[in-house]
């Protein structure tokens, strides 16, 4: 063991300070939102003394909120299912295939994640208009598959690269049929990548604003579009209550993810 030098001590003091500051900083807007939602005051104020649930009682009366939640859940659920169906074979092809341009294809399928959502949004808006597709639901669904797919591709490709494919051959030698071998050996190993990619893809579809804003209409507003409208119209603490409910739901999703795969794996570490 080497005795830490003053420079090393200074370095680690800096590191711990930054970590502490980062955590407080990251959680501050969440904590404040929850506190404001519990305050009886009609202006955004921290509760002093008494707590109240009056803003939560008003959530149900918000115009269009329930519809937008249902729409977002439908779109995100369907888009995630389709993206997993498309993405799983593609990830196997990229991890196992020996065709030229494999790396380029992998980059291409993840690239929507790195490109500006608004630009994809206006491109799809003009494209769908040119094709005569004006209905909001199919437009949103087609677009959201493209939002979820990169998440699925990224985690599944990473998971498959680590997967030892000879295990399937081994299971075959032990007498399992090919589909059974895949089911018994590959599916359990890949399940964490499946769940992680699916969950993050699902969340990013639910949260998407930059693409959805161009594809929604008056009758089909996704949750983020509706939320931003509330903020523009009448910012009262009811929005804080809705936000707190979303924070609660996100916590539940993360707990679910932790139970299923473990948070460290979800963080990609």
């Amino acid at each position, binding site marked *: 063991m080497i005795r830490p030098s003053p420079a090393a001590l200074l370095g680690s003091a800096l590191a711990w300070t930054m970590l502490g500051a980062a955590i407080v900083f990251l959680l501050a807007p969440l904590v404040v939102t929850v506190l404001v939602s519990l305050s009886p005051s009609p202006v955004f104020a921290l509760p002093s003394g008494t707590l109240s649930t009056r803003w939560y009682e008003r959530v149900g009366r918000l115009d269009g909120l329930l519809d937008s939640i249902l729409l977002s859940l439908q779109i995100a659920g369907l888009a995630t299912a389709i993206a997993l169906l498309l993405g799983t074979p593609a990830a196997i092809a990229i991890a196992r295939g020996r065709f030229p341009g494999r790396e380029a294809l992998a980059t291409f399928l993840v690239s929507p994640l790195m490109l*500006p959502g*608004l630009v994809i949004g206006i491109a799809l808006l003009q494209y769908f208009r040119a094709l005569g597709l004006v209905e909001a639901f199919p437009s949103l669904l087609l677009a959201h598959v493209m939002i979820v797919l990169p998440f699925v591709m990224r985690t599944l490709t990473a998971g498959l690269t680590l997967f030892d494919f000879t295990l399937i051959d081994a299971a075959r030698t032990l007498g399992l049929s090919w589909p059974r071998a895949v089911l018994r050996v590959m599916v359990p190993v890949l399940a964490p990548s499946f769940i992680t990619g699916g969950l993050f893809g699902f969340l990013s579809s639910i949260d998407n604003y930059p693409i959805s804003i161009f594809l929604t209409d008056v009758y089909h507003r996704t949750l983020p579009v509706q939320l931003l409208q509330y903020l523009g119209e009448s910012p009262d603490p009811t929005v804080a209550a809705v936000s707190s409910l979303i924070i609660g739901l996100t916590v539940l999703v993360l707990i679910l993810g932790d139970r299923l795969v473990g948070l460290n794996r979800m963080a990609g570490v």
Partner: protein
Amino acid sequence: MNAIARRLGVGWLAAPATAYALILFAVPLALLLVGSLRTLGGWSLAAYGEFLGSAYSWQVIGRTLRLAVLTTAICLLIGYPAAFALARTRGWVQSLLVAALLLPLSLSVIVKAFGWTVLLRANGVVNATLMALGLTDAPIRLLFTETGLLIGITNIFLPFMILPIFSVIRQIDPRLTDAAATLGGGPLHAFLRVVAPLTAPGVVAGVTLVFSLSIAAYVIPNLLMGDAYQTLSTTIATSFLFLQDPQKGSVAGVVLLLMSLVVVVASVVLGKRVRGGGA
């Protein structure tokens, strides 16, 4: 089944996803580019000339870039040391801290932006804290200022910097630093020569993510700054949603797209170099 798969090659399994991404991602973007070059008479760069010829557009582009550079720099300054501390933690403490990073990362941007509008108000928590600490006598204006925007945007993207760096640091053998220290040279020398190069792939990944996310940010500037503050993103949105000027919006969109592509390509090249020359 196996024989068929082998003959066709497993590569064909990528066909459906590739077709989907071509039809619903590549073609629409290509058509956006084509559309921005088309006028009633035929092909023309007139729209680009008009956009890039105006001093205001350059102001907007400069503002977009400055915001992204500052955000990335601040995230790196906070995130790099924080990732080191996080890698030192063990067991449930680490799980709890990772959870504290994942929660804001997974949470809706609009919810976080809303939280900041409350925090940054003149009578908000930030000002109350500053006044209680005696750092200021009167409330400072933060909402609708660039400082406030930077605080908010850094908050949104910080986890994207910490996590990739953290995952790289975790894989470094701590004995390596000790070994470097015994070979002479101070801890700073050991850090610069041994540890820093090993963390480079994580830094490249984090910087790329934060930079490309922040040049494209829309919700945060829109909520914390309002319409008067135009970045490339807000220009695209207002051109399409309010001004009914799709030509201008398309041109701004292509400019933003090209900027993002440059970042992605640069990161691929840099990433290869960092991994290749790490030894």
